[in-house]
């Protein structure tokens, strides 16, 4: 697969993933660009026997996002969730912003597991390859992430009920 074909197929997914991790359009754009530049400059680094192109690109994007996270918050552990901000009940966020804010409160490693599973449709095995952990660890992170979101988004129950169940 050429770099251009990979770009056509995956650039939106890589950008969305980077955007959800960083919640910044400019950083997501930089990460997506760096990700495909890495493929253009060193295509031999992609080994189809080891992982799919999607997994390869997401692993690069994930490392770049983590680097950004460490640059932004030096010393902040990746596995600890941040405190849930107490919201004024009268100040109801839109669903999109509310979910984004709730996910941002998760530990970085829980965030990436949740985003890859829920939004990018990755399997647990693929996520394990991307984050370099075993499937059990990914499953546990995903479970903790969802558990926390179930509590932090409770005030949006009714709004959620307006969506058609999947």
């Amino acid at each position: 697969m050429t770099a251009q074909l990979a770009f056509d197929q995956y650039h939106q997914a890589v950008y969305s993933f980077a955007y959800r991790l960083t919640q910044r359009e400019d950083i997501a754009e930089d990460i997506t660009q760096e990700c495909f530049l890495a493929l253009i400059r060193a295509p031999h680094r992609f080994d189809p026997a080891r992982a799919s192109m999607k997994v390869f690109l997401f692993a690069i994007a994930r490392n770049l996002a983590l680097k950004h996270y460490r640059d932004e918050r030096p010393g902040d552990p990746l596995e600890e969730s941040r405190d849930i901000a107490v919201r004024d009940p009268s100040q109801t966020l839109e669903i999109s912003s509310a979910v984004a804010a709730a996910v941002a409160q998760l530990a970085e490693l829980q965030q990436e597991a949740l985003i890859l599973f829920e939004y990018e449709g990755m399997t647990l095995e693929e996520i394990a390859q991307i984050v370099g952990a075993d499937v059990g660890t990914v499953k546990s992170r995903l479970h903790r992430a969802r558990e926390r979101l179930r509590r932090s988004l409770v005030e949006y129950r009714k709004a959620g009920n307006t969506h058609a169940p999947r």
Partner: protein
Amino acid sequence: MHPDERDELTEQELDALLPGWKTPAAPARLRTSLFGAAETKWWRMSIRIPVPVAALLLVLLAVAMWHWMKPEIEHDNGGELQPVTELRPRIIRSASVQN
């Protein structure tokens, strides 16, 4: 307990909420910045030449132009020296000289 009184969402309620988080579309300039060179029209292409090579080319061009532009000296005989075919010496004597 009434479902709305629980202090956390059910799995189904969370599944219904999560798709509500939308992301913007990737900017179109990404493609240009990555593959712009490959898609550039031929009349917009450029080449890089090292300064010494460019200077040498300029000098060669100037020499070629000078050779091409310089006026040529016209010779009736093609520019070659020829032996004198007819020699008629004419002696002019001075009026004060006595023979």
